[in-house]
C-alpha cells in the first residue's frame, strides 16, 4: 500500500465530507506513492519521534500537528536552517512519508483528541464527545486534587494551574491543544493544552486569578499542547486498524518537550 492509498481509505471512513481546501490535512514530506511498511500515529512530528518510528520499521507518520514548527508547515524560510536540513535529511534517507490529520479529526464524531484528553485526565462521560464536549460533572473535589489526578494519569511533567488549590470543584470544561476554552459561568475548571497568557481574545489566566482574589472559586489546568492531545492519536491508530489491513499501525508518542 502507498501513503496515498492509506489516506484515501481514511477519507472514505472519516464520516464527514472531505475538505480538500484544508491546508493542514495534507502530505508534508516524502513521496505519497512510495510503499508503506508501517504507520506511526503521533501528536507532533518531533525529530525524536521520527527516529523512534523509523527504528520500529514504520515509514509513514500520521500526525495531528506540524512537522516544521509552524501551522502551515511553510518551509521557504527554513531552507538554510541546519535543523530543517538535518530533519528532512533523516526523513529522506529513510524514505519516510508524513501526513497531517488535524481539521478532520476535530470534525469526526467522536473527536478522538477530546475523548483521549478527557480519559487521560480521568474525567468520565466524554467517551463519545465531539470537538466541544460541554461542561462535564466530576465527583466533588478540590482544584489541587483534580490537578494532581490529571498530572498522574496523563504522565505530564509540567502541568500549570491557576487559582486556589483548595477551591471546591465539580464541573469541568475541556478543550484540546490550542483550543483551550474560555472560562465560563457554568463551569468550575477549564482544562486545556496551551493558550496565550495575556492580550488575547479572552485571558483565562487573569480572569481565574482575579476570580480567586474576589472569592469566586474557578480553576485553570494547563496540560501542555502535546500532553493534551496525545492520547487521541492512539485512539486514531486503533480506529484505522479497523479498516487498514496488512500494514502495521503503532502509536509512537511525541515526548513532552519540558524537563521542568
Amino acid at each position: 500500500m502507498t501513503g496515498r492509498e492509506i489516506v484515501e481509505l481514511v477519507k472514505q471512513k472519516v464520516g464527514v465530507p472531505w475538505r480538500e481546501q484544508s491546508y493542514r490535512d495534507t502530505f508534508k514530506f516524502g513521496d505519497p506513492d512510495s510503499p508503506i511498511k508501517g504507520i506511526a500515529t503521533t501528536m507532533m512530528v518531533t525529530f525524536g519521534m521520527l527516529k523512534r518510528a523509523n527504528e520500529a520499521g514504520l515509514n509513514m507518520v500520521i500526525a495531528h500537528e506540524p512537522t516544521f514548527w509552524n501551522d502551515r508547515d511553510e518551509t521557504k524560510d527554513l531552507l538554510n536552517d541546519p535543523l530543517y536540513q538535518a530533519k528532512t535529511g533523516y526523513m529522506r534517507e529513510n524514505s519516510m512519508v508524513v501526513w497531517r490529520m488535524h481539521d478532520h479529526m476535530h470534525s469526526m464524531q467522536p473527536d478522538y483528541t477530546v475523548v483521549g484528553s478527557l480519559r487521560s485526565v480521568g474525567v468520565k462521560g466524554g467517551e463519545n464527545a465531539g470537538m466541544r464536549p460541554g461542561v462535564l460533572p466530576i465527583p466533588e473535589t478540590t482544584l489541587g486534587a483534580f490537578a494532581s489526578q490529571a498530572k498522574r494519569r496523563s504522565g505530564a511533567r509540567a502541568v500549570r494551574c491557576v487559582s486556589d488549590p483548595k477551591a471546591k470543584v465539580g464541573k469541568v470544561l475541556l478543550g484540546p491543544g490550542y483550543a483551550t476554552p474560555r472560562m465560563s459561568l457554568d463551569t468550575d475548571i477549564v482544562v486545556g493544552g496551551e493558550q496565550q497568557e495575556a492580550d488575547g481574545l479572552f485571558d483565562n489566566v487573569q480572569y481565574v486569578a482575579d476570580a480567586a482574589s474576589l472569592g469566586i472559586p474557578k480553576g485553570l489546568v494547563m496540560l501542555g499542547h502535546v500532553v493534551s492531545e496525545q492520547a487521541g492519536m492512539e485512539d486514531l491508530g486503533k480506529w484505522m486498524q479497523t479498516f487498514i489491513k496488512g500494514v502495521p499501525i503503532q502509536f509512537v508518542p511525541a515526548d513532552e518537550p519540558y524537563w521542568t
Partner: protein
Amino acid sequence: MKILDISRRRFVQVAGAAATAQFPLRGADAPTAKAMVQRLQSALGGQWVTDGVDGFKAGDPNTPVKAIATTAMAIMDVLKQAARSSANLIFTHEPTFFGRQDGPAPPRSDGFTGLSADDPVYLAKKEFIDKNGLVIFRLHDNWLSRRSSDMTAGLAEKLGWAKNRVRPDDGLYDIPAATAEETVAHIRQKLKLRGGLRAAGDRTAAVKRVLLLPGFTTAAVMLKRYREADLTITGEVREWENTFYAADVFTAGERRGLVTVGRVVSEDPGMRVCAGWLKTVVTEAPVRWIPAGDPYWRAA
C-alpha cells in the same frame, strides 16, 4: 553648539522636572490622571501611538493623582496593593479586563463570545476600582516604542546580569558559566517564580551566553536568533512552534535550551524600569512598582 546634543525628550524631562519642582502641587490642586498622561506623552517625545491598545481602561481621567503605580498586569492583587498604598493611577503593560478588548465585547461572527457586561468577575473588579477611586491606563505600545530594550534591560538587571551586555539595545548577555539547570534555578530564585517556568532542550548545556526576550516571542524571531545563545530566555512562546523547535534542536545534538518564564512575569522588571523613569518625569506624586508575579503553581 553643545545644546543640540540634548534630545527633545531629555529636554522636556529636564524642563518638566524643573517646573514641577518649583511648584509642588497637593490635594485638590494635584494634577489629574489625564494631565499626568499628557506629561508622559510629551516626555516620551516620539510619535504617540494612538491606534494600538494604550489608553484609559477604568476610572475617571479627571481624578487628582495621589500616587502612581506601574505593573506588568493590573490583576486584583496588584490593585489591592495599590489601593492600600494610596496609589490611584496605575500604568499597566497588559490588559485589565481579561483580553486585548479590555472590557465587554459583543459575540463575534465566528461564535466566540467575549466578556459579557454582566460577568460577575468583571463587575466585582470594576466595583473595587470605582470604590477605591482607581484610574487605570494601559501603557504598552508607547512604552515599547520608547526604546526597544527597556523591558530587556529591566529583566537583565533583575537577573543580576546587567553589566555584561554584548551589544547596546540587544538581548544578548554574557553570564557566569553554569549549566542550563543551574541557570534555571538562578532565574527561578531571582524572579521569585512559582510554577510558570518551563524549560526545553539540553538541561546539561554549558551556558555562558543568554538571549533575553521578555514578553511573547514569535517563532520567526526565535528561529532567526536561537543559535546566538546557549540559552534563550523569554516570557511566552507557542509550544507547538518554538518549543518543539528547541526540542528538535536538542535531538539533533546541539547543546542549547529554551526557557519560558511566563509572559507577565517576564514583563514585571521592565515595568520597574518604567517606574524609575516616571520618577524623573513626575515629581508631585510618589511612583512605585508593584509586580504582578507568577500566577501559576504546579500540580503535585
